[in-house]
């Protein structure tokens, strides 16, 4: 663990990142290790390819869109601060200090609205601030297996937009989207624990301790057991 914390110095302007994203030192460190692990050629940034090589992401129906959300505005690389900023959306939202927060400060990345905005831009391909029926259809296509026919998909997309569309423009704006999510509460679930699991090493150490204690007994045990077996 001692060797790990020395890596903290490697992270470029760790302090400001920590303030901005709200990650703890340990989490940041872990994410940094992950970043380095993903960065195959030690380029110092991640390319699209690096992310595409994550096996589980490849079979995620939204994999491409998730990857794309790391690369805003058509950039081809993401450096560590940006990487962390994207992930910061998924920190648990801290409700308690919502009222106390300085209104001049920008909204923290992990606020409910920002979480929703993140999800919204997964739908909103052309970034016009609206989910058209067409965009909805594309999302559906990504997520629904081949058993469903195109018509079914289309009418589902139609219906989905209709449900959320309040001003009747045939598309879902962010506000409408947020309202919809408010009702079913799925935005609140958008929390991924990225906390560092340093603590989990302890049971292992504990086991080692137990085993080493047992070792003394074992010597005695082996002798007695052999005697025991012979007696049997």
């Amino acid at each position: 663990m001692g060797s790990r914390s020395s890596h903290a110095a490697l992270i470029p302007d760790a302090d400001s990142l920590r303030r901005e994203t709200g990650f703890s030192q340990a989490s940041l460190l872990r994410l940094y290790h992950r970043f380095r692990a993903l960065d195959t050629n030690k380029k110092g940034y991640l390319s699209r390819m690096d992310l595409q090589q994550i096996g589980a992401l490849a079979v995620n129906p939204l994999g491409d869109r998730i990857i794309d959300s790391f690369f805003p505005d058509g950039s081809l690389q993401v450096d560590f601060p940006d990487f962390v900023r994207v992930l910061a959306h998924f920190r648990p939202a801290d409700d308690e200090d919502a009222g106390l927060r300085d209104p001049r400060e920008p909204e923290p990345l992990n606020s409910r609205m920002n979480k929703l905005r993140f999800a919204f831009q997964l739908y909103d391909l052309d970034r016009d601030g609206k989910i058209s029926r067409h965009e909805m259809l594309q999302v559906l296509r990504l997520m629904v297996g081949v058993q469903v026919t195109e018509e079914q998909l289309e009418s589902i997309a139609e219906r989905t937009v209709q449900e959320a569309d309040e001003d009747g423009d045939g598309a879902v704006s962010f506000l409408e989207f947020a309202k919809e999510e408010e009702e079913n509460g799925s935005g609140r679930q958008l929390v991924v624990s990225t906390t560092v699991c340093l603590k989990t090493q302890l049971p292992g150490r504990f086991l080692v301790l137990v085993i080493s204690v047992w070792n003394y007994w074992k010597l005695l045990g082996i002798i007695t057991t052999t005697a025991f077996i012979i007696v049997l």
Partner: protein
Amino acid sequence: MGFQVFVAFGPWNLLLLLVALECSEASSDLNESTNSTTRHEPNVQFAAASSEPDENIPVFVLDYDYVQIPYEVTLWILLASLAKIGFHLYRRLPGLMPESCLLIIVGALVGAIIFGTDHKSPPVMDSSIYFLYLLPPIVLESGYFMPTRPFFENIGSILWWAGLGALINAFGIGLSLYLICQIKAFGLSDVNLLQNLLFGSLISAVDPVAVLAVFEEARVNEPLYMMIFGEALLNDGISVVLYNILIAFTKMHKFEDIEPVDILAGCARFVIVGVGGVFFGIIFGFISAFITRFTQNISAIEPLIVFMFSYLSYLVAETLYLSGILAITACAVTMKKYVEENVSQTSYTTIKYFMKMLSSVSETLIFIFMGVSTVGKNHEWNWAFICFTLVFCQVWRAISVFALFYVSNQFRTSPFSIKDQCIIFYSGVRGAGSFSLAFLLPLSLFPRKKMFVTATLVVIYFTVFIQGITIGPLVRYLDVKKTNKKESINEELHIRLMDHLKAGIEDVCGQWSHYQVRDKFKKFDHRYLRKILIRKNLPKSSIVSLYKKLEMKQAIEMVETGILSSTAFSVPQLAQRIQGTKRLSPEDVESMRDLLTHNMYQVRQRTLSYNKYNLKPQTSEKQAKEILIRRQNTLRESMRKGHSLPWGEPAGAKNIRYLSFPYGHPQPASRHRRVAEFTDNDSSDSELPSIMFKEHSQRDLPQERYPTQEIIPMKSLYRGRKPTNFRYQRNTSQEEHVGQGRRAALRPKPLFRAVDEEYESGEESAEEASAIGPGWPPEHRPSREHHKSHSPLLRRK
């Protein structure tokens, strides 16, 4: 609904009953008749045969005794299988109760019949049969199907809980029952401490596998699932070791007193038996993995090697007085990883199915033994003992759960909530294991064996029926997030999207690989083990091995079924869209939601769905294939276009429009006619006035169409491809409306062009002119295209 239940289930029950009756009656009749004859007749016959050689050979002889045991066993298994079929025919029943309930009921039924007909030879299970033949398959199966990764991530907690939990339960129950036995009024004073401890050890063997099915359906969190799985896996081993040691103690106690040093030796032996078993298991696992490295030419024996080595590890460990159960578990866990990469796909499937089959047969047999011995005279009902056993089982489980998890929560990053602990407490379902151990108690050492068996049976029945049936509702009740249901498709869609997003981000964060020990093992594994154990020609990375699993044939099948369900493209749809807002009836919305829930991709799970009694079709693998194929197409497309994001720039949206039918775009009449000509089946269907979304009509279509699609020979597909090809080259500008809105659901249209360029430019341009043949609708093309497009992704690595 109630009526339907009876209609659906009634006949089955009746049938089963009939079968059961007939079997047992037949067998008992035969048995009686042969019993009487076999006593003296063989001698007579034999004597007769020797004295009078010219006697005729009997034309018809009934020799039931010869086949009796396998015959009856076969009938029982068949009966249980039929019962299972009936059980699953009615869909809601499996959700209501675990399958072990059914097996026990069937067993009790058989038992009742055997008892009623006064069968002469009730089935017996003796110690060697159980330990040598019935137990290993069950353990092997659960070891082999263990999700390795989450298991080792939680290994600390699992060992802590499964190991210490079993011990606490065993000793707790044993000691407190001993205290109860000291009370004179209950008439139990002849049960001594050792016997009580032994009983405690056998009754603490929980078998919570039935609970896992409930968990999976309710989607409980992963660590919780792994806790229960780990307990199911290790608990048997620990209880059996304890049981054997205590049996040894009891035997010893008969002749001499037990001294403290013996107890110490017993403890030491407990450790050695466990550790030694695991050690042997790992060694045999590596050996069998190493051997499968060389089997590429005779893949038929691959399953055999896997099974024989697992069994060998069990036997060797047992020979050395080590724990065979832990050995076979460790063997399965060790070899699984390497064997799966070495063996062929068919062997892999065979292994999986055969393992399920063996374990299911074993367990069915045990449950039937259990049912048979439930009904009968060999019971001793002691209210005090039985009630206190039941109470102590629950109390000690509660104590062990809350105490142990309190401790392990101090070390965990994501502690188990009180809710989780309650669920774990409630999942203490006893099963076949405890019964067998109780049934196998040697009568000479345990005068009150009957009472032990009765108490065990009561505990099993109580936990399996009452807890097993109520745990589903309990988990669902505790699962608060499912409380507020709103009738909305949005919800359905968004929640799933959020889940996928979460899973994706988790993967980006790489939450799983943070153990130093694990990392070290991984390095070691990569550097040495894999080189030794895995065939040379295999690619290294796990994603590549996943691709490897996606056999071309299956992928083609997948695409073809995709075609089947997605042929019709509809003109009415167009009209309907133009007319804009349409009101859908609530039933339609309901059916849409249904459709979505059943067809949306599942969020990837690290714990593969596990069911002790059945091997589910691997939906996750199939899903992975679909996603990969789709994704690969978009990837290729983006690479072809020279920039890597199909996103952001406005053209991207347009390009993906491949999928949709171009509404309002002027249709070239000829093109339309052409498509209509070849898909006239479809268009006639789709011109039905059913503008409303009707699920059932949609469902029916593919089946109707199936035969005609089926008989299209591969060649004609090849041939049929060309005209469309031609079309592409000529009017690429019109590619938006070539009319395969349907087909395109599978792949982006520009890809077609990409494939054309890449593979077909030089290939058959001469043929092109001559290919006037039947212009098959373009829907069929992808099946061939897939041959080619399968590999590029592999190359990507």
